[in-house]
């Protein structure tokens, strides 16, 4: 499973930054945390390939690039984008928020929508199974029956947990972890055979993080009733939501989102589909 | 000789606490150690019981040097009983349990097997109804008698008593001294560190006067108490006897 890292085209970023600013705030005027600025939150740390080198301000990586594209669409210059870090918990806790929107692969779910607002989806992800070559050599097969017997793990804070129950329904209770790093440590220690991630994350982990890592296969997004769709997270009832949604609709229609995806997310067609 | 101390020397750090102590104790004899506080009485007793290692000298018990450095002290201690000023009963055990612990662990006897013998001991020392009491439910005199019974239950050949009446109220002293008289009558070999001069004079066979770690005068009690030769002995006796 090779991961092809497309090199950032700086021109793209420069282009975004320089794109004729529709006077900042046509739609967003007075609706942002700070007038004339757009405050965007991401994870701490932010992971590859969503943000490269944990430096969102460089605009490299899928989510960083999307953020700048949305900002530009909303009429903010690149210089007017302010980055902050906020986890999921800070995003859902009651009280004032430190950001206008937060993007870090938050999956849109009806339960969450009762508490916070999500934008329209900016990415729909397949789910993929990260494992090691040793497990594959041990006879693990990319069939549903074969997957059930594996020892599973997942990041406890993601929708990978219900997805796992929904898609695989493993025979033994999965082990759950705080973050990607811990899940991969458990794979490495042989405590779990496989873990479920969104496909881009899975590709990265299997290629770079997990020693002798491998992808056993993917569940395409259309496999479930609730595919994993990422949305920008905003305070419940955020005034800025309509502006954000407009921007995303425009970016989708213009093919810009697809372009960013092609630049920052590697080819996923080669990953076998689990039947 | 039942017990012979030969040139005992002992120091704590830089202070010499026992300096060339020699003493013979015959079978059935009662020897009293008297002397000012800090003169080394307790230390002698603790050395005989092997609770303190000697720097130099030998202790012969029935012809065996029990102070030899490589010797296992445990079997020796079983032959020598000691009773302390502060009783040192085990507070978490009843009187009977205090007494039975060592025979059970050391001789492997069962509680039931020990009961007749231990009950008899308690009866003999007027403690028949106190066997199931905890130490803190007993008077000082009763506690000290239990401590004596505890040592006797191991059937020791020699008994050491370290100022066993000093912590008692005056009216309780008598009942404990009575026990010693009884033991003497029965032929127990005993060494006492004591401040009870009247008792020492009337009951002891031999008295040693200690001064700063040395025995500077010893002999029959009448000689020591009535005609001490050393000025320090005279001085000490005049002070303690006058005080009474």
């Amino acid at each position, binding site marked *: 499973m090779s991961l092809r890292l497309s090199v950032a085209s700086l021109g793209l970023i420069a282009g975004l930054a320089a794109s004729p600013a529709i006077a900042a705030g046509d739609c967003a005027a007075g609706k942002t945390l700070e007038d004339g600025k757009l405050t965007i939150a991401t994870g701490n740390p932010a992971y590859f390939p969503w943000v490269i080198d944990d430096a969102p301000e460089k605009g490299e990586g899928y989510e960083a690039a999307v953020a700048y594209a949305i900002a530009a669409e909303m009429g903010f210059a690149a210089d007017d984008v302010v980055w902050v870090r906020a986890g999921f*918990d800070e995003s859902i806790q009651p009280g004032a928020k430190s950001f206008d929107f937060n993007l870090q692969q938050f999956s849109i779910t009806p339960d969450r929508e009762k508490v916070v607002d999500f934008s329209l989806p900016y990415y729909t992800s397949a789910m993929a199974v990260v494992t090691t070559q040793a497990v594959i050599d041990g006879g693990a097969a990319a069939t549903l029956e074969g997957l059930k017997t594996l020892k599973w793990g997942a990041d406890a804070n993601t929708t990978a947990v219900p997805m796992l129950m929904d898609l695989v329904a493993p025979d033994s209770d999965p082990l759950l972890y705080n973050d990607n790093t811990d899940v991969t440590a458990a794979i490495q220690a042989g405590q779990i055979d496989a873990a479920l991630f969104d496909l881009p994350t899975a590709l990265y982990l299997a290629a770079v993080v997990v020693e002798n890592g491998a992808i056993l296969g993917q569940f395409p997004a259309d496999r479930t009733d609730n595919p994993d769709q990422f949305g920008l997270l905003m305070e419940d009832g955020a005034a800025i939501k309509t502006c954000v949604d407009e921007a995303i609709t425009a970016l989708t229609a213009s093919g810009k989102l697809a372009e960013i995806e092609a630049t920052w997310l590697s080819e996923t067609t080669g990953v076998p589909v689990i039947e | 000789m039942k017990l012979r101390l030969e040139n005992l020397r002992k120091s704590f750090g830089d202070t010499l606490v026992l300096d060339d102590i020699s003493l013979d104790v015959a079978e059935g004899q009662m020897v009293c150690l008297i002397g000012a506080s800090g003169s080394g009485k307790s230390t002698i007793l603790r050395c005989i019981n092997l609770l303190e290692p000697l720097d130099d000298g030998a202790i012969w018990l029935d012809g065996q040097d029990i102070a030899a450095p490589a010797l296992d002290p445990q079997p020796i201690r079983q032959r020598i009983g000691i009773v302390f000023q502060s009783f040192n009963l085990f507070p978490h055990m009843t009187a009977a349990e205090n007494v039975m612990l060592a025979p059970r*662990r050391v001789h492997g006897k069962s509680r039931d097997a020990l009961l007749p013998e231990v009950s008899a001991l308690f009866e003999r020392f007027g403690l028949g109804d106190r066997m199931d009491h905890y130490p803190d439910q007993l008077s000082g005199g009763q506690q000290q008698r239990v401590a004596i019974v505890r040592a006797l239950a191991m059937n020791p050949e020699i008994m050491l008593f370290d100022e066993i009446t000093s912590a008692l109220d005056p009216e309780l002293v008598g009942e404990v001294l009575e026990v010693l008289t009884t033991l003497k009558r029965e032929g127990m070999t005993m060494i006492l560190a004591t401040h009870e001069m009247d008792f020492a004079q009337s009951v002891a066979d031999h008295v040693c006067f200690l001064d700063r770690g040395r025995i500077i005068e010893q002999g029959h009690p009448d000689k020591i108490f009535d005609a001490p030769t050393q000025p320090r002995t005279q001085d000490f006796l005049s002070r303690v006897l006058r005080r009474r």
Partner: protein
Amino acid sequence: MAGNQGGVTRRQEYEKRLRRRSLFVAASSTLAVLLAIVVLVPRAPGWERVQQSFFNAEVIAKTFPKLLNAFLLDVAIFAWSAPLIAVLGLAIALARDVRNPVLYPLRLFGIVYTDIFRGVPVVLVVYLIGFGIPGLGLPRPWNSPYIWGTLALVLTYAAYVAEIFRSGIESVHASQRNAALSLGLSGADAMRFVVLPQAIRRVIPAQMNMLIALQKDVALLSFIGPVEIFRQAGVFKSLLANFTPYVVAAAIFLVVTVPATRLADHLIAKQNRART
């Protein structure tokens, strides 16, 4: 009892009056504080949000059964860890107490051990041992996070428990040990029958506190995979975007730890009464 034929002494009467008055003061002041909270807090502008996020009835109903179930895992981990901790802690305490110069290395080991494991945060030990040792290539089931996570808890807690035991052992006066030795008991018997029973009794309150701390730290095992109550609450929090599951988990914990604390205090008080 004092008093004649069920009558009450003057002193008892007085104490009763005193008790009644202090009870009244305590009850009324508690009530006043509660009332203030119940009346004032809901008036705060953010109360509704807070209530929705932390005390959501719907979420409680939805998550309680699974959380309770996950709590059984906490109880199980506690149940098998606590005896191991007690045994290892005592062993370390005894190792630190050896007098024989030949066994000095044992003593040194005890010192180094307690220093290290008391100096490192439990979480770190859980991570290091829980991921590290299995990472050396142990086959299943010997790489189970339950085994190594438990070991991490046991190693850490044993260090604290050993220090408490040791302080207890040292608090028993040397004359007790000497009295035992003078009777001809071996050093080991003197420790076992004379020193330890007194030492352990004295440190029961401190050890009870360790048990209560352990009951909470059991949750740290979730860092290496096991889905115990706090992890399960975290999953719910993430899925429902709501903190109520944590509050439920905390409540379940309290239901166990508060009576345990009360019981411990009661036992100690009873023991103290029996002693005097």
